[in-house]
C-alpha cells in the first residue's frame, strides 16, 4: 500500500529526516515511536506533501506520489489527521464537514452518514469549530478525513492531552479503520494505545528509523520514548 524508500526530507534549508524506509499494508496499523523532535511529525508531513521531500521514493498502491500536491495526495488516498491545526476553526462544524464533500464532489447524503457515526458532531453542527473541546476537535478531524475514504490514514498523536474516555474513543476509531481494510500509520507516545492497536512499530531517533519491532516490546519502546 504505502512504501517509503530512502526518504530524506525537511523544511527549507533544514534537513530533518535521513534515509527513511518503511511500508504499511492494507488492514495494518503501524506505529512510529520516538522522543519529541526526532522527526515523527515531519515524516507524516512529508508523506502528506506538507514538508519538502529531498530525495527518495514515495508510492501509494504502486503509484509514485512524490510529485503530487497535498490536495492531489488527498484525492489519491492519503488521509492525514495532523496533531495541530487539523480543522478550520472559524468555520462551523458542518461547514468543516462540507469542505471535503464539496472539494471531492461527494454526495451530500454523506453528511448524514457522518452524523450517524458521530452523534456529538451532529449536536454541535452549527457551533464554530474553534470552540470545540480537544476531544471533539479530534473527532471532527477524523470525520473530515473519513469522508475522503482514504486508503491510508496518517494520524499524528491523536490522544495527546485528551481525557481517558476520549482516548478510548479515538483508539476505537483507529481499530475501526483497520477493520474496514484501510492502512494506518500512527505516531503515538501513549504506551497503552500502542499496545492496543499496533501491528508493527518503527522506533525513531535523530531523524532516522533505528529499529523495527514486529510485536509490542515495552522495554525497547520506553528506551526510545525516553520516559
Amino acid at each position, binding site marked *: 500500500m504505502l512504501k517509503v524508500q530512502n526518504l530524506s526530507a525537511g523544511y527549507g534549508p533544514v534537513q530533518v529526516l535521513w534515509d527513511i524506509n518503511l511500508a504499511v499494508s492494507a488492514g495494518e496499523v503501524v506505529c512510529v515511536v520516538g522522543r519529541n523532535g526526532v522527526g515523527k511529525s515531519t515524516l507524516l508531513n512529508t508523506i502528506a506533501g506538507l514538508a519538502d521531500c529531498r530525495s527518495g521514493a514515495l508510492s501509494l498502491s504502486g503509484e509514485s506520489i512524490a510529485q503530487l500536491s497535498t*490536495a492531489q495526495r*488527498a484525492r489519491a488516498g492519503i488521509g492525514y489527521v495532523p496533531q495541530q*491545526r*487539523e480543522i*478550520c476553526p472559524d468555520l462551523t462544524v458542518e*461547514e468543516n464537514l462540507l469542505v*471535503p464533500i*464539496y*472539494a471531492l464532489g461527494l454526495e451530500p447524503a454523506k453528511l448524514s452518514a457522518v452524523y450517524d457515526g458521530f452523534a456529538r458532531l451532529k449536536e454541535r453542527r452549527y457551533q464554530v469549530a474553534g470552540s470545540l473541546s480537544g476531544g471533539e476537535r479530534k473527532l471532527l478531524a477524523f470525520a473530515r478525513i473519513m469522508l*475522503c475514504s482514504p486508503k491510508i490514514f496518517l494520524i499524528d498523536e491523536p490522544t495527546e492531552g485528551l481525557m481517558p474516555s476520549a482516548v478510548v474513543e479515538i483508539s476505537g476509531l483507529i481499530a475501526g479503520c483497520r477493520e474496514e481494510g484501510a492502512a494506518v500509520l500512527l505516531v503515538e507516545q501513549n504506551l497503552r494505545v500502542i499496545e492496543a492497536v499496533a501491528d508493527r512499530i518503527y522506533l525513531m531517533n535523530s531523524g532516522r528509523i533505528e529499529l523495527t519491532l514486529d510485536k509490542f516490546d515495552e522495554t525497547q519502546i520506553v528506551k526510545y520514548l525516553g520516559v
Partner: protein
Amino acid sequence: MEAVTSQLANGVVVGTTIALTALGLTLIFGIMHIVNLAHGEFYALGAYFTWVAYSLLNNFWVSAAIGIVATAIIGAALLMMFYDKLTGAGPLRWALLTLGFGYVLRELMQLVFGTDFKLVAPPLEGTIPWAGGVYRIAVTVAGLLLILALALFLKKSRYGVLIRAIANNRDAAALVGVSTKTIYTWVALISAGLAGAAGAFMLPVTSAYPTMGLEIMIMAFVVVVVGGMGNIQGALIASLLAGLAQSLLTLIVEPTAATIIVLVAFMLVLVVRREGLQKLW
C-alpha cells in the same frame, strides 16, 4: 438642505465605488496574502473596457458586463501567471511585482487610449429631488447588490465555503482535497472583477482616464488598512465613511482638499489605533 442630501447621496455612490475596489483588495490579501498594487489599474481597465464595448454596442449595461468580465479574466491571468513561481513568497515580493504590473498597465492604457477623457453618457437620465441623479442611485443600488451577492456567495455557496476554508487554514483544506490553485484563481477573478465593476459603474460619472486607478487605489488601500487588512466588513464600513466624509466636505472645501482631509483623518486613526477600526465591529 437639498445640497446636503444631494452630497450625502453622492457620498454613498463614492463610498460604494471605493467599497467595491477595497473589497477586491482585502479579499486577495486576506486569502492569498497578496498586496496587489496593480488593483487600481483593474479599476481603470474596467472603465476602459466598458468604454470600448459601449463604442461598439451602444448599450451601457451590456458593455459594463463585458468590461467586468474582461477585467476579471485579465486581472486573474496576470496574478495567476506568477502564482507557481511565487508560492510561499512574502507580501513584499508580491507588492514589488504588482507595482510593476500597475506601472506597465497604466503606460499601456495611456499608449492605447491616449490621455484624453473617454466619456459615456449616463444610461439613466433625470434626477430625484433631495437624492441626486437617477444613474447615481442606480449605481449605488447595483454596487450594494453586488456586495450583498458577494457576501451570500462566500457564506452559502460551495465555492464560498471552500474559499473560507482556504483562508482559515490552508493546510487543513488541502488535506481534504481542496485545490489551492483553483480556489486562488476564483479569488483573483472575483477580486479583479469587483475593481472592474467599480470602474465600469463610474465611467459615466468620472469618465475614463489613465491615472484614475492610481487615485482610487490610494483611498482603497487606506480604507482596507483602517478597516483591518483582510476584514471585508471593516473595508465596507470604512469605505462608506470615506465616501460620505469626502462628499460632505466638498460643501465647505475644494474636492482635492476634501480627499486630503479624509486621508489625513484615516492616517491619524492608524496612529492612534494601530489595528485600525476593526475591533469596533
